[in-house]
């Protein structure tokens, strides 16, 4: 019987993975999870095509990271445009808040980026081992998000936040590896 921790590794993927899953569930009912549970039972490609599979895997990992970062930045920007949900809900009501969120163009683009991240993950898992894909994609997404938030969202990423992002990225890599 597989231990809980070894099963756990399978979904220690980028922090934005739940977002991608939530989106993926809506866009393509469960196709992904079926593929994930199926793929990870096989060992990765044969040694003759080792170089190609390494290249494919890392390309897919970079695609996951890029799409997740783009998605997170767009979703964060969309919600800043919508405004404080709690205060807004008390003033205009829940339905109006949901309507504002769903009609925000940045929100829709962010959801699309998350869908791309979800499918990149499926490709990555079909080419590479989950013990490489999961920690690599998760850690790089944390670092990428810190950089992107500073550049595109003008967040004040001070030393405290750099240290926090690096520590969490390292910790997630250890926990998932």
């Amino acid at each position, binding site marked *: 019987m597989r231990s809980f921790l070894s099963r756990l590794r399978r979904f220690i993927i980028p922090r934005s993975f*739940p977002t991608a899953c939530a989106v993926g569930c809506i866009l393509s009912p469960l196709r992904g999870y079926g593929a*994930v549970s199926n793929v990870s039972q096989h060992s990765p490609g044969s040694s003759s095509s080792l170089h190609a599979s390494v290249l494919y895997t890392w390309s897919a990992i970079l695609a996951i990271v890029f799409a997740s970062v783009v998605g997170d930045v767009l979703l964060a920007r969309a*919600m800043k445009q919508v*405004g404080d949900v709690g205060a807004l809900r008390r003033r205009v009501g829940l339905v109006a808040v949901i309507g504002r*969120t769903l009609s925000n163009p940045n929100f829709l683009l962010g959801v699309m980026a998350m869908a791309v991240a979800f499918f990149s993950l499926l490709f990555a898992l079909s080419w590479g081992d989950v013990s490489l894909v999961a920690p690599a994609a998760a850690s790089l997404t944390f670092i990428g998000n810190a950089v992107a*938030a*500073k550049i595109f969202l003008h967040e*004040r*990423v001070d030393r405290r*936040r750099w240290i926090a992002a690096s520590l969490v990225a390292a910790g997630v890599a250890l926990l998932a590896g």
Partner: protein
Amino acid sequence: MNFRKYLVLAGVTVFAAAGDSMLSHGMKQTGNISLNHLPSVIFAILNPWVAGGILLLLAFFATYMTALSWADLTYVLPATSLGYVLLALVARFLLHEHVSPLRWLGIALITGGVGFIAGGPELTKHEPHEHGAVQAPESVGAALSPGAEP
């Protein structure tokens, strides 16, 4: 940061961890499915673990969006990474599994990282003339009003 906001961050953490676990568990019971065979999709969604997992992931998405509406992305992401720690602790203390020293180090690093940002401000206060267009006026007003913070 008031109690309600900490509750939302805790919700993001717990919903993500629980939702992914339930969906993963449920999909292993139903096996592989594809869109070419629609009855298998419906069968999978009727599985209580899968349905529960999807509901929890939707709850995660709603709380995550709520958190992003009043906190920076670089605050929310590390703050909610405690979910990984939560899953490892469940494995250790509820399922009595062995957790290797390297994983304990990972848990310590994540906890330390969360501690680092927890002491700081959750939202970058933008100067109105600088990036005023990025922020909606009501969110600035809510952040600066004396009643918003206890």
